[in-house]
């Protein structure tokens, strides 16, 4: 993911500019947000975040020359008479000129750790096959590779004994950040139940189910039909998992699991990282 600062858009209504009607202000800001931009509306009292080195484009209905903001990072654009969509186009052009990164096109799905609850047990690090988690210099768990996370998969939050892993865009609590209830506090029991349900090895269960599906569908002659059936089967599996207090792993994630030996290798690697981190905590 790019670390370059995004373009900041300022909707300016101060000295040297005409104010917007409320509906126009709403239309312009909505249009910009829908294109992924951050907007500062300076229409009245209350402070806003100060300039912070980000490239800035100042939009206004300037009667004549735009004010001189005496900042090399500031570009001004007169948007008098433009519709909301046109304003967004103007900003997109300014973004390109400023060489600011383009955002969007990716659902930001990644775990957020509630450090008020986390006990640094390393269950998540041990569980994740995709290298999302790591430890900092003090052997504290942290999310290191957001982009490795599988969209819509909250499985690691299901194995957390403290309900400390959130996915803010998940549909239900406490994974979405909602209050942790008494039932959720019984997570240790849930973790054991999941382990028992899966025969003690989550990945072995997933591998077996994936292999069964592959075996079944390798006999199919019609590949399209086979794919449709496989997806249907995995959707049922996901639903069954959810109904049984399971892990809610999306079918597409199950479908994309690597080969069994690769799963075993990654799982062992993850367990080893967790073991090292736990040993460092104890020393």
């Amino acid at each position, binding site marked *: 993911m790019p670390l370059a600062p995004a373009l900041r858009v300022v909707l300016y209504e101060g000295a040297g500019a005409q104010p917007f009607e409320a509906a126009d202000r709403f239309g312009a800001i909505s249009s910009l947000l*829908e294109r992924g931009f951050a907007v500062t509306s300076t229409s009245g009292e*209350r402070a806003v975040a100060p300039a912070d080195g980000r490239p800035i484009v100042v939009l206004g209905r300037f009667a004549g020359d735009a004010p001189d903001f005496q900042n090399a990072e500031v570009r001004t654009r007169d948007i008098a008479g433009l519709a909301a969509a046109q304003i967004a186009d103007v900003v997109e052009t300014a973004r390109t000129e400023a060489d600011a990164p383009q955002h969007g096109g990716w659902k930001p799905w990644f775990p957020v*750790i509630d450090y008020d609850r986390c006990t640094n047990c390393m269950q998540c690090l041990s569980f994740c096959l995709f290298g999302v988690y790591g430890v900092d210099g003090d052997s504290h768990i942290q999310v290191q590779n957001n982009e490795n996370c599988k969209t819509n998969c909250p499985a690691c939050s299901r194995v957390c004994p403290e309900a400390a892993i959130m996915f*803010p865009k998940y549909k239900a609590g406490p994974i979405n950040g909602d209050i942790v209830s008494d039932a959720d506090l019984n997570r240790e029991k849930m973790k054991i139940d999941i382990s028992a349900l899966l025969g003690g090895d989550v990945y072995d269960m997933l591998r077996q189910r994936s292999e069964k599906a592959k075996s079944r569908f390798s006999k199919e002659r019609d590949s399209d039909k086979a794919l449709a059936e496989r997806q249907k089967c995995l959707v049922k599996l996901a639903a069954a998992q959810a109904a049984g207090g399971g892990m809610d792993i999306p079918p597409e994630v199950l479908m994309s699991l690597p080969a069994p030996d690769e799963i075993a290798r990654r799982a062992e690697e993850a367990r080893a990282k967790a073991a090292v981190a736990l040993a460092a905590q104890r020393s």
Partner: protein
Amino acid sequence: MSPPRILYCHCHYAQVVPKEVKETVLRRLCESGVAFEAVADLCEMTARRDPALKQLAASGAIKIAACFPRAVKGLFHQTAADLPPESTEVLNMRTQPAEEIAAALLSPELTPNLPAKGAAAVVVN
């Protein structure tokens, strides 16, 4: 003391916040004539560790219209931009009525509600 700053999150990259709530809150802010910050998606900013989050967190009292306070706190923390617990109020567009959120945002009074360590999360409404 100056009134708290206002931050509105559009939660653009998912459909978990009701559209009518987002629209009504944003419309009320635009109608009010107060200055505010609007971002497309706090999660997306956290994912790419946008330095703007530090500015937002470090500029004093703030009211945030977004989602669950526990999630918002975690998102900022994950970019090393801790929100000040004594001067941060989070309004939850996933659960609270739009008009209630708009009224709270525009009120000069601030009710801090970030969950504290070792305590149950706070219900806003």
